[in-house]
């Protein structure tokens, strides 16, 4: 800058000295201190008890271990690609472009809901399906669904407390049954989930499972009218559903999927359930009564599968709040927590892929058991 310098003004104020000077410096210091404290408070650094996305992910890591480059939950999975063929029937309730008749390309992922990417396929009795619909208008719809009828808890804090209760005891390497029992004793909302999980069996195939949004969302129609909904993917393949025999081995799901896709595409129907007035939209532990109206919004057609280490689903964060115009979040408190926690998981695993300093170093991959 070549600004001309200005001569010292003659009417310069008298120099401050002593207490007056100290007082004014103190005012400046106080303004800075208040700003810094407010900033640190908002950022959660002064509230170690506050539940943050980082603490949620840290707890998942404490329970399952750290597997660099992998998702912090639902770590074991496989990519799938295909398309969604809309029936046009949901258009009345949502003006999202994905529901206009026609095709929308989909990149999806099936997973075993565990934190360990090398866990056995039968380690948990449910599966998950995540989808990213790429709409022609450039908007996206991402959803992560699970093959269970209800979620065990209502709030992010309760989910965190559940994870804490399930943290393996270092002495035994297994969760402390007393802690888990105490958690469920103080969380009666988990009863529906516990009732279901008692008889649930790990399915032999991803293809025969139905996958539920669990959380409620809101469809917004062309007139701006809001319709609370939940959705689920209902499989057309039902051959092995309810099959009592769980296959032997630890990695049978991918092989089953590859075998089925070699014979032709796999299909699910996207069923959208419309809430009745008064149905809870903020409580994923409560199923809506079974007489609620379902709309068959269209067919999900999956045509091919790829390993998650190299497939197109690898770098997608299936954040359930990436929604197109016409679909909105409900007041379910789990939704923003999922969005926030997935973002943290995504940053950690992409940082590991980038080998950024301070990130977990890659572990030698255990022998493939396929």
């Amino acid at each position, binding site marked *: 800058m070549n600004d001309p310098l200005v001569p010292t003004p003659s009417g310069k104020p008298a120099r401050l000295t002593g207490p007056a000077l100290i007082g004014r410096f103190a005012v400046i210091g106080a303004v800075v201190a208040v700003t810094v404290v407010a900033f640190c408070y908002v950022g*959660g650094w002064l509230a170690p008890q506050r539940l943050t996305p980082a603490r949620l992910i840290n707890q998942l890591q404490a329970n399952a271990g750290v597997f660099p480059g992998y998702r912090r939950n639902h770590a074991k999975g496989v990519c799938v690609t295909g398309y969604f063929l809309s029936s046009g029937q949901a258009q009345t309730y949502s003006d999202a472009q994905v529901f206009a008749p026609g095709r929308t390309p989909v990149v999806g992922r099936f997973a075993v809901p565990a934190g360990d990417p090398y866990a056995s396929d039968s380690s948990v009795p449910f599966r998950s399906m995540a989808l990213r619909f790429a709409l022609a208008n450039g908007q996206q719809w991402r959803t992560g669904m699970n093959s269970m009828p209800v979620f065990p808890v209502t709030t992010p804090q309760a989910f965190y407390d559940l994870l804490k209760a399930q943290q393996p005891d270092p002495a035994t390497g297994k969760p402390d049954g007393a802690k888990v029992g105490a958690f469920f004793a103080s969380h009666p909302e988990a009863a529906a989930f516990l009732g279901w999980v008692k008889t649930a069996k790990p399915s032999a195939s991803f293809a025969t499972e139905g996958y539920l949004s669990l959380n409620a969302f809101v469809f917004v129609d062309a007139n701006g009218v809001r319709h609370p909904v939940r959705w689920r993917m209902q499989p057309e393949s039902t051959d092995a559903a309810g099959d009592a025999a769980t296959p032997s081995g630890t990695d049978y799901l991918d092989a089953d999927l590859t075998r089925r896709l070699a014979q032709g595409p796999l299909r699910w129907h996207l069923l959208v359930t419309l809430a009745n007035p008064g149905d809870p939209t903020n409580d994923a532990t409560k199923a809506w009564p079974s007489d609620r109206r379902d709309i068959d919004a269209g067919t999900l057609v999956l045509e091919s599968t790829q390993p998650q280490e190299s497939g197109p689903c690898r770098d997608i964060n299936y954040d359930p709040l990436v929604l197109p115009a016409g679909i909105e979040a409900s007041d379910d408190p789990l939704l923003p927590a999922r969005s*926030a926690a997935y973002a943290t998981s995504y940053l950690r695993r992409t940082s590991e892929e*980038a080998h950024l300093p301070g990130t977990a170093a890659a572990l030698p991959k255990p022998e493939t058991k396929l």
Partner: protein
Amino acid sequence: MNYSSSAQFTLAARVLHWLMAAMILTMLFIGVGMVASVSERHDWLIRIHKPLGIAILILAVVRLAVRLRHPPPPLPVDLPPLQKVAALASHWLLYALMFAMPLIGWAMLSAGGYPVMLSESLRLPPIFPVSPVAFAVLRHAHAWLAVLLFLTFLAHMSAALYHGLIRRDGVLSSMTGIRLR
């Protein structure tokens, strides 16, 4: 009345300064707040963060044009050289960050493969190819530069108060339009 205490920034520069000061400070608080929250705050703060960031980017362009057209009033001639250098450097750092932060945020979402939505239906085109490595680098850069921006803001605010309360040399009033003694 003397020259240094009557020389002022133009009205356009003053309006832009105070408007953007409020927006940028709000933005910094929204940013640290949203990434530390799992509540519904997380979602609505992000919905404000993106359009507000783009608004700051647009205003930064306008502001740079105003600044180039109307150079700021000169610093007092008796300001020690080190303070003069600090003043100039911090101002250019603030300008650089006003451009860099929104652009990095935009590029970061593009690299992560996210649609860059400013509202329910208003979408910006991607400005960076999809790449997880680039996403991670840009996302960390966004956070660290936010800390740098906050620290630069603190230095700027402290210096302004030092000029206004202690030196009383007309530097603060050239931006406030108010005489403080």
